[in-house]
C-alpha cells in the first residue's frame, strides 16, 4: 500500500517536471502556445468531469462559462479600466456566481431536459455575443485585451503565459482532487448512483449539484480570462456549441469520472485536432475543420459505446479482459 502511494507521488513529481521542462526544449512559440491551450482545456475538462462524471449531470453548454470569463475579463480590463489582475479575479467571481444563479433553474431539469437546457443556454449566449456588437464587438470579435500584469511584471510572451496557465491548471487539479476525496465528493458520487437513494440518506442533492456547477463555472471563468489575456483577441466562435461538445469529448476521452484523466483528455483532443489540421489539409485542400468534427464525433460515439470509462482506464480494462480470455482459451 505504501509503495503504491509513493508511485503516485513520483508520477505527480514527474508530471510537474515534464511540464516545467517543456518550454526550454520546445523553443517554438507556436508549440508552446498549443501546450498552453492544453493547460487551459485541462481546467475546463476537470470542471466538466466533476459535473458529468461525479455528479452525473449533463452539461452541453460549458463553453458558455469559458466565454463569460473571457468577455468579462476583456470588458473589465479594456473598457472599465480595471488592472488586468483585478479584472481576472472579478471575472472568475462573476462566472462562478452566474454558474450558481443559472444552475438554480437549470438543475430543476434532469436527464434529456438538462442536456437541452444547457445546449439552449449556449445558443442564447452565442446569440448575445453576436447581436450585442456595441458591448462584445459582435461576430468580428473583441480586440486589444491587455496582457496580465502583476505590479511591474507583465505576462507578455508565450512562455510566461505557459507557466502561469500550468500553475493555475495544477492548482485546479489539486483543488478538484481534494473535492473528490472529501465529503462533497462522496455525496456527488451518491447522487450519480441514485439521486433518490442519496436524498433518503440526507444528501441535499440540489445544493451539492449547484456548488459543483459553480465551481466548474469558476474554473471555466479562470480559463477564459487567461485565454483572453494570452491571445488578446476573442470572438464568439471560440465559445459556441461545437466547443462545448469538444469539451465533452475531452472529458469522455479522459474518463468522465477521472480528475487526472482530464489532462490526458485535453492533450489528446488538442493534439489530435492539430494532427488532423496538418495532415488532412495537405490531403485535401481546405478540408481540416471537417475532418476534425468527424473524428471527434466518431471518437465520442466509440468511447461512450465501448470504453465508457475513458480511453486509458477503459482501454486497459479491455486489454486485460482480452488477455484473460486468451489465457482461459489457451
Amino acid at each position, binding site marked *: 500500500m505504501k509503495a503504491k502511494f509513493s508511485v503516485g507521488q513520483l508520477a505527480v513529481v514527474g508530471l510537474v517536471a515534464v511540464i516545467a521542462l517543456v518550454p526550454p526544449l520546445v523553443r517554438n512559440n507556436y508549440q508552446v502556445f498549443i501546450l498552453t491551450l492544453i493547460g487551459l482545456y485541462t481546467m475546463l475538462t476537470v470542471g466538466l468531469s466533476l459535473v*458529468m462524471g461525479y455528479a*452525473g449531470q*449533463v452539461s*452541453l453548454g460549458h463553453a458558455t462559462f469559458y466565454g463569460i470569463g473571457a468577455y468579462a475579463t476583456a470588458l473589465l480590463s479594456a473598457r472599465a479600466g480595471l488592472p488586468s489582475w483585478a479584472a481576472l479575479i472579478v471575472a472568475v467571481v462573476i462566472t462562478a456566481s452566474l454558474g450558481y444563479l443559472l444552475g438554480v*433553474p437549470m438543475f*430543476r*431539469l*434532469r*436527464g*434529456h*431536459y438538462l*442536456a*437541452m*437546457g444547457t*445546449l*439552449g*443556454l449556449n*445558443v*442564447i449566449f452565442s*446569440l448575445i455575443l*453576436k*447581436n450585442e456588437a456595441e458591448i462584445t464587438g459582435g461576430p468580428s470579435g473583441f480586440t486589444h485585451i491587455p496582457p496580465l500584469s502583476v505590479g511591474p511584471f507583465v505576462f507578455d510572451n508565450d512562455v510566461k503565459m505557459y507557466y502561469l496557465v500550468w500553475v493555475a491548471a495544477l492548482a485546479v487539479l489539486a483543488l478538484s482532487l481534494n473535492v473528490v476525496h472529501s465529503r462533497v465528493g462522496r455525496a456527488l458520487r451518491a447522487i450519480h448512483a*441514485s*439521486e*433518490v*437513494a442519496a436524498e433518503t440518506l440526507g444528501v441535499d442533492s440540489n445544493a451539492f449539484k449547484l456548488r459543483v456547477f459553480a465551481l466548474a463555472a469558476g474554473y471555466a471563468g479562470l480559463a477564459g480570462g487567461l485565454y483572453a489575456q494570452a491571445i488578446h483577441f476573442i470572438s464568439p466562435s471560440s465559445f459556441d*456549441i*461545437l466547443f462545448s*461538445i469538444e469539451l*465533452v*469529448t475531452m472529458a*469522455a476521452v479522459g474518463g468522465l469520472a477521472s480528475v487526472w484523466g482530464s489532462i490526458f483528455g485535453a492533450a489528446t483532443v488538442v493534439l489530435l485536432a492539430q494532427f488532423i489540421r496538418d495532415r488532412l489539409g495537405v490531403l*485535401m*485542400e*481546405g*478540408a481540416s*475543420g*471537417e*475532418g*476534425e*468534427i*468527424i*473524428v*471527434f*464525433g*466518431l*471518437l*465520442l*460515439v466509440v468511447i*461512450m*459505446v*465501448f470504453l*465508457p470509462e475513458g480511453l486509458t482506464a477503459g482501454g486497459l480494462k479491455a486489454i486485460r479482459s482480452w488477455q484473460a480470455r486468451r489465457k482461459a482459451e489457451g
Partner: protein
Amino acid sequence: MTLQQLAQYLLSGITQGSIYALIALGFVTIYNVTGIINFSQGEFAVIGAFVAITLAQETSLFNGLAVVTLAWPLPLAALAGVVAAVLVGVLLYRLGIQPARHASPLSQIVVTIGASIALRGMVLLAWGTDPYRFPAFTQGKPLKLLGAVVTRQGVWVIGLTVVTVVGLFLFFQYTLIGKALRASSANPGAARLMGINTRRMGLVAFALSAGLSALGGIVITPLAFMTYDRGLMLALKGFVAMIMGGLTNPFGAVIGGLLLGVVESLAAGLISSGYKDAFTFAVLFVVLLVRLGGLLRRGRGEALERAGL
C-alpha cells in the same frame, strides 16, 4: 399591427412550423419506442435535403473533386433523399444506439450528440459550406389569403405535412407494424411476450423518424437555403415542439411544432429577428419550468424504474 400583418406572420409561422412538426414527430417516434432522445435528428433533414439537391441539379462534391449532373426529376430526387436518410438512420441505430442500449441516459445522449457532429462533418466534407437551394415544386405566382401572401411552396409544405400526419395516423392505427410499434412503446415487456421483436421495432422507429425529418428538410429547402450546419438547430426546435406537445403524443408534437413556428414568426417580426432562435429556448424554459410538476414526476419515475426500486 394590421390584420393583414397578423395573417402574414401566422401563415409564415405555420409554414416554418410544419418542418418543426415533422422533426418533432420523428423525435416522438424514436422516444416512444426506444426511450432515447436522438440529438442527431436534425442531421437527417440536412442529409435528405442535400442528397435530393445533388440528384436533381448540378452539384459539385468534395470541394470540386466530383461534379454530379444527373438532373433527376424532382419527386424522384426527393424520394431518394428520404431513402438515403432512412439508411443513415438504420446505420446509426445499428452501430451507435443498439450497442449502447444498456448504457446510462447520459451516455446515450453523448452518443447521439457524437453522431450528430460526425454526420455534420461528413456533410461538410461532401458539400462544403455553401448554401444550397431547390426550385419550388411548382412554379407560379404566390397566392393570396386574407391579404397575406403564401408562396406555392408554402402550400406544398403545409399540404405535405397534413398528408404525412394523416398517413402516419393510419399507419399507427391500422397496419401490423404500426400496431407493433405502439405496443412496444406502451409496454415493451408485454410486447416481447406477444412475439414482437422490440429491437427490430427500434430499428423501424429510427428508419421512420429519419424519413420524416428528411421530408421536412427537403420541402423547406426551396423556401430557405440549406446549409451543412442547420441540423442541430432544427433538432433543438423539433425537441422543443415535442416537449410542448407533451413528449409522447404525436399529435401534440404536430401542434407544438406549428405553435413554435408561429411564436418564432411573431417574435422575429415584432421584437427582434436577431434573437429569433433565442425565443425557442425562452419557450422551452417556460414550458419546462411551468409544467415542471408533471415532467419532474415522470423523470423521477423513470429513475426509480432504472434503479429497480
